[in-house]
């Protein structure tokens, strides 16, 4: 799994820079899909029962686990709302994004 620090877009300046074989050499982490979102999930951790369902059903791999609790990575969360819908104790709420 590529680390976040190599989240850089690769741009070739000339044809000479291209690899001999057409193969992927970078990850898609440069593409911050969090900008697609217009509602954001917020987890009320005091009600969390640590079932791991939000982590399991996140299609964008943007719910991580830190210290046995779920944490949303807002750089990549697309705001689909599956976590809020599937949470058995409804401790995730979708709030409107403000700029």
């Amino acid at each position, binding site marked *: 799994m590529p680390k976040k620090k190599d*989240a850089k877009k690769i741009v070739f300046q000339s044809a000479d820079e291209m690899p001999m074989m057409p193969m992927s050499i970078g990850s898609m982490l440069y593409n911050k899909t969090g900008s697609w979102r217009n509602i954001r999930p917020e987890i009320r951790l005091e009600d969390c029962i640590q079932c791991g369902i939000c982590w399991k059903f996140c299609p964008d791999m943007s719910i991580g686990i830190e210290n046995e609790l779920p944490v949303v990575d807002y750089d990549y969360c697309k705001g689909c709302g599956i976590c809020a819908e599937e949470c058995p104790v409804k401790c995730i709420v979708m709030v409107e994004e403000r700029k």
Partner: protein
Amino acid sequence: MKKEKKMTLTLPVEEYAGSGNLACQGCGAGLAMRYFLKAMGPRTVLCIPACCWAVIDGPYPHSSLSVPIYHCAFEAAASTATGVKAGLEMVGDDKTTVVAWAGDGGTFDIGLQALSGAAERNDDILYVCYDNEAYMNTGIQRSSATPYGAWTTTTPVKFFKNQPKKDINAIMAAHRIPYQATASISYPEDLFKKAKKAKGVKGTRFLHIYAPCPTGWKSRPEDAVKLGRMVIQNCIFPLYEIEYGEKYTLNIKVKDKKPINDYLKLQGRFRHLKPDDIQIMQEEVDRNWARLLKKCEAS
């Protein structure tokens, strides 16, 4: 904030699919790939024809997956996988699993002859079809996986699709392949278990994964997982395994079958249906379910 309890995780934590991919919000295909690669591990080669995943993965030279991918022509997923497997065998690599990962168009319509050929030769590949019931990538055109009554851009509301969905699992069972199974993204443990089992079998394996598509089905993105669950409970897409085309195993025995109305109501593509059309669909579902139960009892 600290809690004493440990988090209960039913799947391994390693991720081989990365964030930043180009999937729509609430994409079922993204979830399918995530669970599938968790089961497969890093020693996997994917052959992806033209389908949603050819786009989701990202533009050259970037890739959101941490396994190698071979982008191939639309009709050639199975034959490309066969070739990759033969090449790997030539260099003495028998540990890598070669996977053809195609959408429903690349499996049911365009890739069917290559898949049938590979299954007849019993080549050692794992073919996965993630089924979102139309050509979603090119703009929601009808495929032979589209169910009866559905709206697509080529079957508009006035002339909605009049034919039922093709039974791809019966076609594959007729090839007597060693292992095939259906799975849904809403039952990740079941999908994980089946992918692990398929990895251990030699010969052609076939996985049919039900992947809801909020964009094409005109449903809300947050309902994707709910739709994947409803489809099992009202027996439109039962979960079962077939070994050698004969031994049927039903994984989830649905006790009280729910009517399909709630499932249809959540999707905009079925909004135009009259009660008579829904009745036709319900009868079709009942017939298929009864046929499957009979096959399971017979084996």
